[in-house]
């Protein structure tokens, strides 16, 4: 929401055909922003788990995970460092599909997504369900590259992309919200690009 201050002579340069969240600009590139070196995970060692406030934790190996039903997703994504990328093409497993394999305890309200390499990010459970989140395996027709979070990353397009944990290893269900990696370093607990 602009105040009264304007910069004399400043003109927008890029005409985006899309509606951008406040302060964002469009990119056709796919920037890589990671805290630290890129983890490389060997597929025979890869596993994905759901644990915490569930009746019984579950785990899938890479082979098992790839047997799960997959869908196509074509979201716009928004990074907190100001770039937005429109109409991206992913294939992966919906969080709704994964939740069919566990019984959540009634107190489960929040989720901590955790990754190989130690990254964590927190979000409300409601922001993962009803088609709002998926585990992405393929990006633009290719297996997801390690720099972009491959072999599997969480994708939650309606929130800033730091919530879309790369190299995701699992989801831990919690009753209270708890700060993940960037949240402890000062980023907001929720991360709505449209709330700037």
């Amino acid at each position: 929401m602009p105040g009264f201050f304007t910069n004399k002579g400043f003109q927008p340069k890029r005409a985006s055909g899309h509606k951008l969240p406040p302060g964002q600009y469009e990119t056709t590139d796919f920037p890589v922003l990671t805290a630290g070196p890129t983890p490389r995970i060997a597929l025979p060692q890869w596993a994905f788990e759901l644990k915490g406030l569930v009746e019984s934790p579950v785990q899938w190996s890479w082979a098992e995970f790839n047997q799960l039903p997959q869908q196509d997703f074509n979201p716009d994504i928004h990074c907190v460092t100001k770039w937005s990328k429109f109409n991206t093409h992913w294939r992966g497993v919906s969080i709704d599909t994964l939740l069919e394999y566990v019984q959540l305890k009634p107190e489960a309200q929040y989720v901590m997504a955790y990754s190989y390499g130690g990254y964590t990010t927190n979000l409300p459970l409601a922001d993962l369900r009803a088609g709002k989140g998926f585990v992405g395996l393929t990006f633009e027709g290719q297996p997801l590259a390690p720099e972009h979070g491959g072999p599997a990353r969480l994708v939650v397009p309606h929130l800033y992309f730091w919530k879309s944990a790369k190299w995701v290893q699992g989801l831990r269900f919690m009753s209270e919200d708890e700060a993940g990696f960037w949240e402890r370093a000062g980023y907001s607990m929720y991360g709505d690009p449209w709330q700037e």
Partner: protein
Amino acid sequence: MSRLAWQIGTVTAIRAETPRVKTFVLQLPSWTPHLAGQHYDLRLTAEGGYQAERSYSIASPPEQTGEIELTIELVEDGEVSGYLFAGVAVGDSLEVRGPIGGYFVWRGEPARPLLLVGGGSGVVPLMAMLRHRQRAGLHPPTVLLFSVRTPEEVIYQAELAALAQADPSFTLLLDYTRQAPAGWAGYHRRIDAPMLGEVVARLPAAPQCFVCGPTGLVEAVANGLLAAGLASESILTERFGPTGGGNNG
């Protein structure tokens, strides 16, 4: 996203560092001390209400109170950097918010060796760390490996050379990837694992590493440092996207 408020700073000086890099000195009405490595968000607003925002690393140390220095590279067809270079003069106002960042920061540990690796304008947050180190009288064994394409692109060259001359605990290693100065006997290729192995060997113990620059460089350096035996927790990275829209673009 940030709990900090926007404030309007006054440009009190503009310095050309290289043909495509300038430092803007901004006096801030609500300046607060920052940590070396942090950045400010800068926002431009057009008459019609359109806004563009970018993040720029703070180049100045926290000891330089009341103002911040932002060293900014002119990006090809850059919407924000283009305006800053062509449309902003001393006395003008710029809207900023910060300081921001809790990850890529050096808190001034006096004993642990420090390895700083920068590519191009990635040197900016590393310079804040070196300036803070110098102003605070800290002397951990420190190496800056600074990779540029050509000799005219060495941002802060005179200051870095003077620092290396005056402080035996600081070593400056320049690396030219495209064109080196006449008679250059130092590094003259893209940073690779053997180079990093040699650089790490100059330090008396495993260093804390800060790596900043374009994505490709940061990937190569992070992987090379891991290959040299450093723990991944000791390698902190800040990448600029290829669009130049990350830091300093």
